[in-house]
Structures are given as C-alpha cells and as structure tokens.
C-alpha cells in the first residue's frame, strides 16, 4: 500500500515537472536572448542601436548596428498586411457567422483550415512567382519584391487567425441581442453593424492582435518576397528588410561570439518583447471581456 502511494506521488511529480516545463522554456528563451543580446552593448551604444538607421555590421572599418530601419520596415509591412487582412477577415468572419448556412459555413471553415496549414515558405514562393511579377506589371516597376508584396503575403498568412477567432466571437453573441434589435425594426445589416459586431468587438480586437503577432514574427515570407534592402523605407514600393529577415539572413554566416552575433540576439530580444507585448494586449482584452461577462 505504501509502495503504491510512493508510485502515485512519483507519477504526480513527473507530470508536474512536464506541466511547468512551458514556464521554464519561456523563461529560458527570455534569459537566453537577454544574456546574449546584452553582450552586444559592450561595443554598441544603446542609443545607436535603437535610433541608428544604418545596419552595416560588415562595413570596412566602422561597422554600425542601428535597428531603426528594420523596426520601421517590420511595422510598415505589418500595417500594410492589416489594412488588407482586417476588413477581409472580419467580412469573411461575419459572412460565415451570420449569413452562410451550416453547410457553406463548414466548407469555408475547412478551407480556412487548409489555408492556415500552408507552410510559410510556400506563401513566400507564391510571392516570388505570382505576386512579385503581378506588382511589377501593374505598377510598372523593375522588381515586384518590395514591402507591398510582403504586406499582401502577410495578409494571407494572418487571415486564418483573424477569421477563425472573429467568427467565434461573432457567433458567441446571444441571440437575444439580435432579436431585440429586430424587434426595434432594424434589418439584418443594421443589426450586424450596430449590435452584433460592437458586442463582439473585444473578440475581434483579440483576433487582430494575434494576427499582428503572426505578421510581425513571420520570417520566410518576408525573407523571400520583400527584397531585403537594409535601408529606411520611404514607400510600399521600396525593398525592405525586416527584423526577422535580417536575423534569418545573417545568423547562418556570422562567426560565433562576435559583436555581430550578439547584436542579432539583441534584435531577437526586441522582436521577442514586441510579440510578447502584442500577446499581452490580447490577453488583457480577453481578461477584461471575461470579467465583464461573468
């Protein structure tokens, strides 16, 4: 009997340890980025790092490590993506939740599931072979590998997230809300715009935040489709290099333990904090929403 108890206890300890593993990994990632990233600041001034616009680690003589251009590039490409994905995503979500019948809704949901499953390298490939030439032709440019291309691809990548979470939020709105609205003489469109969507607003915000998180962290699509010019972008037709793409290009070639190596971890740390911040906003909105409901 006692042996049995010890065995049960051991099993519990095992599951507990695997249970808290997620916390350990998250802390581990954070510490790893911090420790490696901070090493870069032995050689690079903090202000130069955050506000310098020139990233040129291999410059002859004086190398520079300013990340402002790539931070701006990341946000610009993400902003462009959201300008496409938010209206398209919420529109589709509203269609599935409010208009489509059961059958069409199921088909659309599985189509969105398939879209979510397409690897990012494939979307990047589509950016090179289809979207790039298309942009070049329409806008009469020599190359279609630019910020606009990246935005279009990131929109495609974040659409499944935005659609499925928004759709869930819209569908969760109690029928009473709508019935009350109809009783007041509103038609279905007015009810959707004035009642249902505002009621589902926090869920929609969460979906957008997670979509933004997805877009900011995407690597392969932007790496393949934006042209990777490490300079401050002036328009969506400029070639840009995002934080993720810079790490992806340079990490493979940089010698271990150099300032350049550590600087890339510092860029990773910035990226980590940005995406954590975006997630945190989503969490806070969710918490507030749940608090109000119960």
């Amino acid at each position, binding site marked *: 009997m006692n042996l049995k108890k010890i065995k049960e206890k051991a099993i519990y300890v095992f599951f507990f340890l695997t*249970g808290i593993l997620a916390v350990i990994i998250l802390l*581990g990632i954070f510490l790893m980025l911090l420790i490696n990233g901070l090493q870069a600041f032995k050689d690079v001034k903090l202000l130069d790092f955050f506000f310098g616009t020139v990233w040129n680690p291999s410059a002859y003589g004086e190398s520079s490590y300013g990340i402002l251009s790539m931070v701006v590039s990341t946000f610009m490409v993400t902003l462009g993506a959201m300008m496409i994905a938010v209206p398209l995503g919420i529109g589709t979500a509203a269609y599935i939740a409010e208009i489509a019948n059961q059958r069409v809704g199921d088909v659309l949901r599985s189509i969105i599931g398939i879209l979510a499953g397409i690897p990012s390298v494939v979307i990047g*490939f589509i950016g090179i072979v289809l979207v790039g030439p298309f942009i070049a032709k329409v806008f009469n440019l020599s190359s279609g590998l630019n910020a606009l291309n990246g935005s279009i691809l990131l929109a495609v990548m974040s659409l499944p997230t935005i*659609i499925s979470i928004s759709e869930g939020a819209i569908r969760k709105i109690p029928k009473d809300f709508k019935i009350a609205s109809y009783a007041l003489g509103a038609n279905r469109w007015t009810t959707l715009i004035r009642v249902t969507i505002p009621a589902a607003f926090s869920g929609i915000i969460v979906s957008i935040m997670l979509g933004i998180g997805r877009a900011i962290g995407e690597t392969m699509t932007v790496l393949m489709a934006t042209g990777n010019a490490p300079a401050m972008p002036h328009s969506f037709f400029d070639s840009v290099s995002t934080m993720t793409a810079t790490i992806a290009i340079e*990490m493979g070639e940089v010698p271990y333990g150099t300032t350049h190596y550590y600087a890339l971890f510092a860029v990773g740390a910035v990226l980590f904090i940005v995406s954590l911040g975006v997630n945190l906003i989503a969490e806070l909105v969710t918490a507030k929403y749940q608090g109000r409901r119960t």
Partner: protein
Amino acid sequence: MKFNRIKEIIGFGLLILSAVLVVLILGIIIFDIAIKGFGAISWGFLIDFPKEGMTKGGIFPAIMGTIFVTLITTLFSIPLGVSAAIYLSEYAIEGRLTRIVRAAIRNLAGIPSIIYGLFGVAIFVQGLNFGTSVLSSGLTLGLLTLPWIIATSEEALKTVPQSYRVGALALGATKWQAIRSNVLPYAFPGILTSSILGLSRAAGETAPILFTGVAFFIPGLPGSVFDQFMALPYHIYILSTQHHAIDQVRPLAYGTTLVLIAIVFLLNLAAIIVRYRFKKKYYI
C-alpha cells in the same frame, strides 16, 4: 425604409465578396502549384539525388531529411506535450501557478519561429554541443510544436466525461490507474489528431532549422542524428532565391513545393480520417 434595404444588399454583397476572395486566394495558390508542379514530378524526381548543381535530378534527400527531422520532433514533443496536458487537465488545481503555466503556453505559441531558431543555436547547437544537426533541428522544432500539442491535448482530455474518472476511482483505482485506463484511451483519438496536425506544421517550418542543422546540399543521407540534413522547405527557399540559375530550376522548385504541400495535406487528411474512424468506434 427602401434606403436601408439597399444598404443591406450592398453590405451583405461586400461580406460575400470577402468570403469569395479568401476562397479565391487559396484556389490560386493550390491551382498554380498543382499545375506547374505536376509537370516536374516523376518517379525519378522522388527517388533521385540532386544532380549537376541541383539543376537536374530529384529531391530524395530533402524528403528523407524532412521525415527524419519530423520523427525527432515527434519523439520529443508528443510525450512531453501530452504529459503536460495530463498535468493541466487531471492534476493541476486552478490557482495562481496554473494560471501562470497557461499564460506561458499561450505566449510560447505566439513567439516568432525565428526566435526558436536563435534559442536552438544558443542551447542545442552551442550549449549542449549537438552542433548543426538533425538532432538540434528536431529538438528546436519540438519546442515550437510543444505549446500546440499541450493546448490541443488538454482540449481532448477535457472532453472525457467526469463520470469516467469517478467511476474508476470508486472501484478502488488510484488516480494514475484511472487516467491510464479510463481517461487516456477515450482522449486518444483527439490527441492523435492534434498531434498529426502539429507535426504537419513542424514539417513545413523553415526558420527554426535555418541555422540549427539544415544544409544547402549534402551528397548522402544523414547517417546519425549528429549529421546535417536537407529538408523540403529549405530546398524550396534555396531553389527560389539562392540558386545560381533560378529561372532554370524554377520547375524543380514548383515540383518540390507540390511535394511539400502534398505531404502537409496527406497528414491533415490522416488527422481527419483518425477523427472520423474513432468517432464511429466510440459513438462520441
């Protein structure tokens, strides 16, 4: 009144249009790759090594490399992920610690894949001295897949009716016996389905393996877990951006993309079949 009706028609029209657009996006992607990729695929393409600077030959080592690395990911992330899910669903008491664990899982799921790549370099390649290898890449992908496996397995465990647990406990079973004999079998199809889906995503990932073990070209298959490997997603990246004759190898890039998509779809199909078959068996 009439004005409102017109607004409704236009508004609903726009919603339908956005849904059609989303379907069209997927349609264009699949159609383009299927049409242009199909021509490149032959038996030889699947079982040959690349030849003449990757301008001819097949993608056999890339297919094997992807299978190999996904296997290590499986061995690492599924036992750990399912155990963590068992803890959260069966043992954990809802409190501060559990809330922190759940928040950590959600945040891990939101971390960019390239950060996992950096972590893999610092921990597996340098720290544990596994070098750039199948093992380092497999473990890195395992970490990336872990939050997904935990979250979806917990969902599966939560669908098991409470009476299954108390029934076993009432018969004198210990907690673990109850979990093993009454909870896990019932949750198994759900866990299997979500595991397959998680692995299909890992198989298509590129960023985490970029600097942890994947290679441009290696003349043979990896002989051990400490060797470098070729992988389908990286092969697509190389053929479409880094190759010296990009236009010449475009058909090969299409072919490789079609093979990768086919693998991802087959895994998804397997997940659907598992769910369907077990549903019938258990009358869920």
